[in-house]
């Protein structure tokens, strides 16, 4: 962390960048928040620890409108979102300076608390162990039990965009604590259920939604200035859902709007205060796109055409959904 601060100070001092976008200590130790640092002294408040889950790439849309370059710290999976934003002309590479930081997975505070940790102040990873500094002294737990679900199916430790790397090397492999699972396993489990049970599952999940819009606001792919959900004409406007249709409407449209652009960064599920597994909706689209139109990872590059703005003459017909065994 000290290394990051020192380098940021250097870049601020020599005028390469006008501000630094990173994380600062939040109200509680397990809740660091995204922050801008404009002066070298401000950087004393900078933190980078495994609780820094927030993907900072979306803030670059606003930062790009300011004078000068913005230094930003991105974890490997955050750089996919960055590329996607560049591809969609939302962010300019020239206006940013990326320092790729190493990542051993980000933590789910709920899981850490569930392991009996109280008064959490800080955390650090040591091999496969998580060392948590608490008010009652240092405690340990296995790293894999504390990681966010998204990190258990990590895309890998390679930064796909960066100006320099600190605390990691190009092409670094994921550690054994990560990549434990198949990211489509849960989607497949749901697909195999009878429609009635699937409906009940989603009704149970989606009816918890309080329409706080955190998922929308955190998502780096959701970057429209005027959002369809803000329209007073829309049938699922800004309020808690009154019936199942509104729940489905909001969630289908939200997931659909990022279909083919979602990098599977997992921010939506991470920020949802109601714990709705939104990634299961996004991954359904990703899985379908992969099977119907060929493997596609949004944000892997800045040029390729997105699956929904492309086609081939031989594409499958929509009837495939029932032939494949829909309506089970």
């Amino acid at each position: 962390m000290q290394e990051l601060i020192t380098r940021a100070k250097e870049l601020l001092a020599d005028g390469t960048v006008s501000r630094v976008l990173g994380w600062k200590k939040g109200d509680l130790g397990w809740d660091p928040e995204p922050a801008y640092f404009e002066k070298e002294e401000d950087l004393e408040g900078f933190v980078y620890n495994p609780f820094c889950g927030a993907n900072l790439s979306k803030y670059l849309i606003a930062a790009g409108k300011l004078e000068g370059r913005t230094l930003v710290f991105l974890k490997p999976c955050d750089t996919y979102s960055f590329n996607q934003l560049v591809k969609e002309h939302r962010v300019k590479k020239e206006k940013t300076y990326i320092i790729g930081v190493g990542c051993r997975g980000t933590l789910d505070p709920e899981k850490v608390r569930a392991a009996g940790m109280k008064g959490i102040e800080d955390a650090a990873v040591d091999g496969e162990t998580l060392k948590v500094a608490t008010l009652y002294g240092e405690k340990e737990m296995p790293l894999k039990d504390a990681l966010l679900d998204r990190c258990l199916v990590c895309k890998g430790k390679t930064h796909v965009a960066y100006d320099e790397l600190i605390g990691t090397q190009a092409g670094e492999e994921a550690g054994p604590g990560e990549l434990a699972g198949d990211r489509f396993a849960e989607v497949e489990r749901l697909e195999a259920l009878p429609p009635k049970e699937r409906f009940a599952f989603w009704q149970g999940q989606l009816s918890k939604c309080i329409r706080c819009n955190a998922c929308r606001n955190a998502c780096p792919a959701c970057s429209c200035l005027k959002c369809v959900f803000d329209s007073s004409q829309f049938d699922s406007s800004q309020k808690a859902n009154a019936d199942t249709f509104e729940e489905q409407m909001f969630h289908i449209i939200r997931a659909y709007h990022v279909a083919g652009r979602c990098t599977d960064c997992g921010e939506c599920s991470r920020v949802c205060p109601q714990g709705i597994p939104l990634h299961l909706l996004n991954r359904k689209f990703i899985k379908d796109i992969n099977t119907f139109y060929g493997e596609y990872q949004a944000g892997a590059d800045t040029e390729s055409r997105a699956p929904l703005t492309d086609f081939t003459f031989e594409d499958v017909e929509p009837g495939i959904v029932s032939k494949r065994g829909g309506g089970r």
Partner: protein
Amino acid sequence: MQVEHTEFRPKIVAFCCNWCSYAGADLAGSSRLAYPADVKIIRVPCSCRVNPMFILRAFQRGADGVILCGCHPGDCHYTTGNYYARRRMTLLFSMLDYLGVEDGRTRVEWVSAAEGVKFSATMNEFVAKIHELGENVRLEDLRCKN
């Protein structure tokens, strides 16, 4: 006097593109081929004009089935519109199926201006399917029901 409605009459919305399918429907009519009156046609310039939200909206307002008809792939009046529509609808239908909405309620069929017979056959088949599935309850807005 109160009229008792016991028989289920499905409400079916058919989005038809102006150039092929709407003309196909016209041909079905002028050839005196029958299809159920439960099908309400909405004319759109191209199948790709249909935003996935239109389909959801139709269900919200009480449709029991929604079918999209367009020119055969390769015959689109705007050259490529139906190719985009095809991808969009495939993903949408798959998502609806995933959420547990019966997948027979949605359908895409390519009907050319010369296929009046196909149009009426498709509509008869689709209406029969919706009859079988019954009323749409999983994708409805209670406030839109009377």
